[in-house]
């Protein structure tokens, strides 16, 4: 589904913010992505949701080599990816309902089906009574649930969450990951970026760790157990010393 080979990213003429990244995210897998602030987690996620292209290396998304994919074909790939942003990025001038319905409408989904699916999902995340409210009237936790609902409404093949637990307490954070696990069980590949090591240790999913712009499998760096059949096929060797 996602395959990187020796991918490097630099902004302008600056130093590489990601170096020699090689990874493989298989369909219906679940990964944590950890690393200190500024380690490059967001840049790696940006690569995966096609908001950034590598400066070098080979990157394949859904079986397509991104370097030779025509620009007009990228939206179709992006529509297969759901993203939960750290700052939610809800549109303040749209209602909760319209925010969640946005991906379906962009994909040209039938309006009646959109209405049903969005109402059902918002009921499921406990916001069925807030359909017409603006995001600004919701609490932080409620906004996050709207953001998650928006990310999963189109049943994406790949769900990327950038620090979804950053602004919530441990109990809510645990429930959030459980929610992502439910989606994972329905066939969605999930990558959750977090710097909450304690949370990561409560689950048995493989961990990708970014350090010094390079990606390491968890067993080699973070000490967490890799799940059986880890999808990480290759990673750079840990720097000695």
């Amino acid at each position, binding site marked *: 589904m996602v395959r990187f080979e020796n991918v490097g990213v630099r902004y302008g003429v600056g130093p590489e913010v990601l170096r020699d990244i090689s990874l493989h995210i298989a369909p219906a897998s679940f990964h944590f992505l950890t690393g200190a602030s500024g380690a490059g987690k967001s840049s790696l996620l940006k690569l995966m*949701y*096609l*908001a*950034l*292209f590598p400066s070098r290396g080979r990157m394949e998304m859904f079986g397509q080599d991104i370097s030779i994919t025509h*620009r*007009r074909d*990228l*939206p*179709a*790939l*992006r*529509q*297969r*990816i759901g*993203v939960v942003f750290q700052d939610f*990025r809800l*549109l303040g*001038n*749209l209602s909760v309902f*319209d925010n969640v*319905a*946005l*991906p379906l*409408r*962009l*994909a040209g989904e039938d309006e009646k089906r959109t209405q049903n699916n969005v109402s059902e999902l918002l009921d499921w995340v406990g916001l069925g009574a807030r359909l017409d409210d603006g995001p600004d009237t919701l609490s932080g936790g409620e906004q996050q649930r709207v953001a998650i609902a928006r990310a999963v409404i189109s049943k994406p093949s790949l769900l990327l969450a950038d620090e979804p637990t950053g602004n919530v307490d441990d109990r809510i954070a645990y429930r959030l990951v459980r929610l992502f696990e439910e989606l994972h069980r329905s066939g969605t590949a999930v990558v959750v970026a977090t710097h909450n090591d304690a949370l990561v240790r409560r689950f048995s999913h493989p961990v990708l760790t970014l350090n010094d712009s390079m990606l390491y499998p968890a067993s080699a760096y973070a000490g967490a157990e890799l799940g059986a059949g880890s999808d990480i096929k290759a990673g750079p060797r840990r720097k000695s010393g």
Partner: protein
Amino acid sequence: MAAPDLIPDSEGAGRFLPWVVAVMVFFAALAGAAALALHQATGTWRNDLANTITVEISPLDSPSGGDGRNDDSAGARAARESERLAAVTAVLRATAGIIGVRPLETAEIASLLQPWLGDSGPAGLIGDLPLPRLIDVQLSATERVDLSALAKRLAGIGPGIRIDDHQIWLGKLVRLSQSLQWMMAACLAMICFATCAVVIFGTRAAFAAHLEVVELLHVMGARDGYIARLFQWRAMTMGLKGGLIGLAVTAAALFALSRLAADLEGPLFGDLALSPFALLVLATLPFLAAALTALTARRTVLRELSRLP
């Protein structure tokens, strides 16, 4: 989803766009009206004069006549002039291709001079002038008249008889009119250019103001055309609003100008009134302005989007 929901009207750059478009449409409508009126008038002048010539018979010299005799009394001179007029008229009526011959009365000729010499009556200045006799000749639209041969035949009647086919006067007038039309067209082109520049500036500002929304839509898989349509719709609405305001102001200005022109009572100014077709063309300006702003906004957004991955 209605497009304005996603890209709300910004507080900044977009707000002045309708007023700029209104001003541009006002100037464009004035330039267009002038060009259309001149074009129309030129056509009218051409048609009016294409099948007419004027034969001018100069007055006999006094005291020495053009034919060399110098003992004429005023009465005898008038009689000879009448004879010449009759002879010329007879030649004209006998010429194939001429369908109408109408000698102008002296009073009509005097009335043509009134705007310059004043209404002094037969006993005044005009009455004292040796006025030429003029004959208005209508030519057939289908049968060509050999004007050179006709001129020779008329010259055989006596000196001082010449044909004026109006081509020199008409040529100058048409050249002036066409030059003015080109200037108006250049004005319209500059107005379009300035409008596009303003729309590009405003769209870029709106794009920057809504960059977060644009990036979000982009990441969600919105196609460039979809995002461009959001701005295009917004620009078109503002362009149409501005265009209608500009057209309303233009209508008031043209109405005032037409009232002023009517007071001039000049023979040429009557031809400058706008035809229904010209008015229809002017009425389309707000829609053209809306289309121009929409297309410019679309191209601008597509260009900005091409910088995103």
